């Protein structure tokens, strides 16, 4: 990883760990490489301590073993209740893969769900191209990227198909809330090829493919030959999501 000294003014980010979370360390690294002061926050810690953070990342994995539905149990937990309250004040919340499922199950996106992949109906793992949609400024995590920017990310889920009523998706389209889409055909059957959906305010993003697993050259150089000549520890492609997050946090004061 890129060595970077943290400073007291770096935005403070809590990376949430539930029993079964498995992407927390690379998420912390990706945040730190983007200039944020990230640390792990365990589900068993006092939820009130979360309020001292500027932003939250719900990391990928299988929270509570995905029992009942992916994200369903974690979404009912006291720490998610606090995160939801802080999000309503305007703090940034990034849900990655299982974290996106928690965000959706907690109702932070409105009437949108993440359901079993179709037609596969089982776990899929592959590198995918994700394309920045027409209004990236709509969302704190894509603001600053050019429309049409393509990023490689690691898709790894069995319940990652964005779905909802047609009217709900018409509303998402109308308000440009699908900020990231799969390039080409949706690998999991997601409606409108949705890969990342933000809330109406743009401070919460649920992103199914993992940017943190494709955030450095060494993650993707085998698939993208032009990166082989680069320092393998150099942030690449999907790391832009974390840089946008850091920039948004530096631009705006943290809501209290």
């Amino acid at each position, binding site marked *: 990883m890129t060595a970077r000294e943290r400073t007291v003014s770096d935005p403070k980010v809590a990376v949430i760990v539930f029993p079964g979370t498995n992407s927390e360390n690379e998420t912390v690294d990706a945040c730190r490489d983007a200039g944020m002061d990230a640390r792990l926050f365990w589900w068993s810690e006092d939820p009130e301590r979360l309020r001292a953070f500027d932003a939250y990342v719900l990391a990928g994995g299988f929270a*509570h*073993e995905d*029992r*009942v*539905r992916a994200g*369903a*149990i974690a979404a*009912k937990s006291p720490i998610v209740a606090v995160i939801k309250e802080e999000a309503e004040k305007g703090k940034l919340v990034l849900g990655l893969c299982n974290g996106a499922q928690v965000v959706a*199950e907690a109702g932070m996106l409105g*009437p*949108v*769900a*993440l*359901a*079993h992949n*179709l*037609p596969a*109906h089982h776990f899929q793992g592959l590198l995918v191209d994700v394309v920045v949609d027409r209004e990236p400024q709509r969302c704190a995590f894509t603001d600053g990227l050019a429309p049409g920017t393509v990023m490689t990310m690691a898709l790894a889920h069995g319940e990652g198909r964005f*779905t*909802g*009523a047609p009217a*709900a998706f018409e509303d998402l389209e109308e308000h440009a809330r699908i900020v990231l889409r799969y390039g080409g055909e949706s690998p999991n059957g997601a409606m409108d090829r949705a890969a990342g959906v933000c809330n109406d305010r743009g401070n919460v993003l649920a992103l199914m493919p993992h940017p943190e697993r494709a955030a450095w050259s060494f993650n993707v150089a085998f698939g993208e030959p032009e990166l082989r000549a680069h320092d393998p520890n150099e942030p690449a492609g999907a790391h832009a999501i974390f840089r946008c997050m850091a920039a948004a946090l530096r631009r705006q004061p943290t809501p209290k």
Partner: protein
Amino acid sequence: MRLEIALDLIVPDNTAYTVLVALRDLGYDGLARVERSHIFSLDVQDGTSEREVIDRIARAEVLFNPNKHRLSYALEPLRPTAGNGAPRWEALVTDTEDDTRSLVALLAGPFHVHGLRALARGIAWRLSETDGPAPQSRVEWACRTLLANPVSQRYEVRPLPARKENTQ
């Protein structure tokens, strides 16, 4: 013919236990036990023997694993279990969008479940309080609160169907 198959774990069901703890945490203090079944509703060509379908499904070991499941079944239309006590309710939760065509092709093809035309799947939940089955209103509350996602799933709370145990 429509045939409904229920698969219950004969090993500890960690998911059911998690639901028990979660529903208690969400305010259902009187909840004492949660049971869960995987449900498969099979659409089978008329004239096919019900016994043969069950035998093939059991032998295929695609849906059913004899080392960890108990298989029971009932012909549709389902009839409720008879009993003198309080009625027993079961919540059946299904995805609103599903695609089981490849599973049907697998069972009807290599595993010789002859006459199988279509299949629907879901999860059934049964709740018990310390002194008997949970009332219908509580089962519905559990569905709204945790067991079913209103955007991607539907649920039906129904009388517990009388099922025959597969003993072969």
